[in-house]
């Protein structure tokens, strides 16, 4: 019996102490006719050795990012991960603990969450952050709901150049609460928020304006403009940001954001087919802190005056406030947040700046090379680590051909918008090398 210490003798002894004869007696409370009378229909068990072989064969049916050169992004990115992180997060004390309900024996998890909160707050230049969210998309949706509750308004404005998946999820969350979503269109030439769409009157009932920096097309927007617009309507500015970009790009706090969310999976977490990632959630001001979803760790002292950490402000949470809670989140993504904290600690300010700078420069390089090779840019705007390229091609077919040459091509925009069928979203992280890019350009040039 893998992982089960009870031997038949143990079982007999224990049953006897209960005055029972068989294991079946334990289930006397279950109406007999409801009980399953046959074994579950599951595959035969595999011994560990066979399991490993079987699973590695299954894994090999996937083409992994070490087997190809990837320019795929669109919400998930191949960033470099320091090797030491996985060693630290797999220490049993981190891996096999749960939410730190008993603070005195959970200082490891609590202090590491406190570090995560601190580092996220500093990186975003906000005052406080929570212990993590499921991912960036759900963090955004919760930010929108929280904006409604904080402002007592029932409309949310969001730039249409947000990640379409995030917009969809936002829509699902808002609909469930009967909140109206107003999509602020983008300028078809730049992909940036259409400033004309931000009409003065429009904002008066909106709880918040959601902008993403960079936007789904990789471009950097004029956040100040959107900020002024929503502030003038007494709404909140909600920013969704790529944390890596903050090594170079103006911090949300510097824009006066009220709530900042994003996906921190790119900070030291394996990409793993998109999950688990980890969302972050940062705010300014105690008023918003008290409405924040998720766990929060605070600093305190013990009876001897020693500094320690505890879960705090629990009055917001489901286990205290139940249907009045600010969110239903319970388990979050603690281990991924720990990985992100370790990543930030290892990289430090210089390292993060370097990651951002290399993304920026390499993206610029590939973009220029592709232009020189005869391709057009879909949008005319500054970009960070991703850009939309235009050519009258079937990009999904091109991607098939690229695969044969060992490249994972960009994201065909037709998958989210038929109007962009001629374009592909190309991502370049610090992990790409000049040689990889040059060969990629050569290949594509040959097919033009």
């Amino acid at each position, binding site marked *: 019996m893998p992982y089960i210490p009870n031997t038949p003798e143990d079982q007999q002894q224990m049953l006897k102490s209960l005055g029972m004869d068989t294991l079946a007696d334990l289930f006397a409370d279950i109406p007999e006719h409801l009980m399953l009378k046959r074994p579950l229909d599951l595959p035969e068990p595999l011994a560990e050795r066979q399991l490993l072989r079987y699973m590695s064969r299954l894994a090999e049916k996937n083409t992994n990012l070490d087997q190809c050169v990837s320019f795929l992004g669109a919400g998930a990115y191949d960033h470099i991960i320091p090797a030491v992180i996985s060693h630290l997060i797999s220490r049993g004390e981190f891996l096999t603990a749960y939410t730190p309900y008993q603070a005195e024996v959970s200082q490891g998890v609590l202090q590491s969450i*406190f570090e995560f909160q601190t580092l996220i707050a500093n990186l975003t230049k906000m005052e406080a952050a929570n212990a993590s969210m499921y991912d960036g998309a759900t963090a955004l949706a919760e930010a929108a709901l929280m904006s409604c509750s904080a402002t007592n308004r029932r409309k949310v404005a969001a730039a249409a150049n947000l990640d379409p998946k995030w917009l969809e999820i936002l829509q699902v969350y808002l609909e469930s609460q009967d909140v109206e979503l107003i999509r602020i269109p983008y300028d078809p030439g730049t992909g940036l928020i259409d400033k004309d769409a931000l009409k003065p009157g429009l904002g008066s009932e909106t709880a918040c304006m959601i902008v993403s920096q960079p936007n789904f097309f990789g471009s950097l927007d004029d956040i100040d403009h959107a900020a002024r617009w929503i502030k003038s309507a007494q709404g909140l500015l909600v920013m969704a940001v790529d944390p890596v970009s903050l090594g170079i790009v103006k911090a949300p706090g510097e824009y006066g954001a009220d709530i900042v969310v994003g996906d921190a999976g790119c900070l030291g977490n394996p990409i793993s087919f998109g999950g688990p990632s980890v969302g972050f959630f940062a705010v300014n001001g105690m008023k918003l802190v008290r409405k924040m979803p998720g766990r929060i760790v605070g600093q305190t002292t013990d009876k001897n005056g020693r500094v320690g950490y505890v879960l705090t402000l629990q009055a917001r949470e489901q286990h205290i406030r139940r249907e009045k809670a600010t969110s239903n989140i319970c388990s979050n993504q603690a281990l991924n947040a720990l990985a992100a904290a370790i990543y930030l600690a290892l990289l430090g300010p210089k390292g993060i700046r370097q990651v951002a700078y290399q993304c920026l420069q390499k993206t610029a390089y590939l973009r220029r090379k592709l232009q020189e090779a005869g391709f057009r840019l879909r949008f005319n705007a500054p970009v960070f680590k991703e850009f939309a390229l235009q050519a009258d091609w079937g990009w999904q077919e091109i991607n098939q051909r690229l695969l044969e040459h060992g490249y994972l091509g960009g994201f065909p925009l037709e998958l989210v918008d038929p109007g962009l069928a001629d374009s592909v979203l190309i991502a370049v992280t610090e992990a790409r090398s000049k040689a990889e890019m040059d060969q990629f350009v050569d290949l594509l040039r040959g097919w033009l």
Partner: protein
Amino acid sequence: MLLLDLSVPGRRGYVLPELDVEETPIEELIPEAYLRESDLGLPELTEPEVVRYFTQLSRKNHGVDVGFYPLGSCTMKYNPRVNEDIAAMPGFSRIHPRQPESTVQGALQLMYELDGYLAEISGLAKTSLQPAAGAHGELTGLLIIKAYHEFSGEGRQRREIIIPDSAHGTNPASAQMAGFIAREISSNSRGGVDVEALREMVGPQTAGLMLTNPNTLGLFDENVETIAKIIHDAGGLLYYDGANANAIMGIVRPGDTGFDIVHFNLHKTFSTPHGGGGPGSGPIVVSEALVDFLPDPIVEYTDGKYHLVRPKHSIGPVKAFYGNFAVMVKAYAYIRHLGAAGLKRVSENAVLNANYVMNQLKQDYYLPYDRICMHEFVLSGKRQKELGATTLDIAKRLLDYGVHAPTIYFPLIVDEAIMVEPTETESKATLDAFVEAMREIAQEAKDDPEKLRSAPTRTPVVRLDETKAARNPILTRKALV
């Protein structure tokens, strides 16, 4: 000392390969107004310092690997390390969610098969693996209930979700998030749903009922069929909070007892590690009638290939991409390793261990519902409270024994609740040692309650001041002013 206290300007913990492309002046790439001016506020440390810092932190933490962790409702069972190795295989950990389907057939097959296993275990039809945790599964399930009623044209009318007073806090919170009104139904003297009260509560406004079975008292609600009938007759749907599924694998299937939607916590029942509070995974399984409403996408198998498909009346996606894939990999491996017989043994032994411990403790602690329990049970510390030691004190004292405390003050319907879930991966010796500790503590409560009130004493820090933390919140290294 926090990371930033250890920081020394100029240190580097990780260095990228040199930039190998010609550089463009940054001002040609980004308008100056878009550039960051402020400090990053990150520490400057070397790798050895970071390793020592986090190693030291970890040593201040309890985990299943360190000792017994009978945290009720959380199923703190052993987490097999082989599953970590499997999830780390590059074919699983290094695949991009937007890759062409043809390049991720292994991942899709895994999801498709896991979907099928969970359907079989629950007795339902089809799974969405997207929810990131139990609570997220609840929200998703409730959105499906909503969509179902809307589809039948009853969306406006069916606004109420009935939830037992014993339920986990996420249930009412999820109901609220899904835009429902949560109605609390009280428990009867056996700890189950008060069936008569339920009959009175249902009506055309009823969207559904959320039930945990075994419930958070660790008790199987014998009236489950009656309850199901009442709800179904009223036009509502039944949602099963599967946080307690460790008790029922291969024994009884929620689908067979009338439920329409089930969520599982893979991080509980299927042994994926809790990671200090996540990542979890909260897949939901639904009956045939609800398949079309599942979140986008689900995995289908057609023409010898696996595909990501949007169900016809999908509620839409509830999370970016496909859920916590790496967690699914571990749960999948667990199921493949144990098989049907293994899973059944898990539940049998989880229930056996709980009953064994409950029976040993009911002399010394008040047992509000004295009947067979399932995988966990709830004591009350009220006798000890009268002696001057609260359940909190008992919990803190347990820490001195190298044991993590049970869940306390939950469920709310039990005064001074102490909720014990031993799990099947604990040995009789461990259970006996726990019983011994609990008895000693009960004795201490009689002889010297102050000893409990001043516990713990053998932990890295002693009793922490939670009130202070909440009154004057310090949430980052530089306090909020």
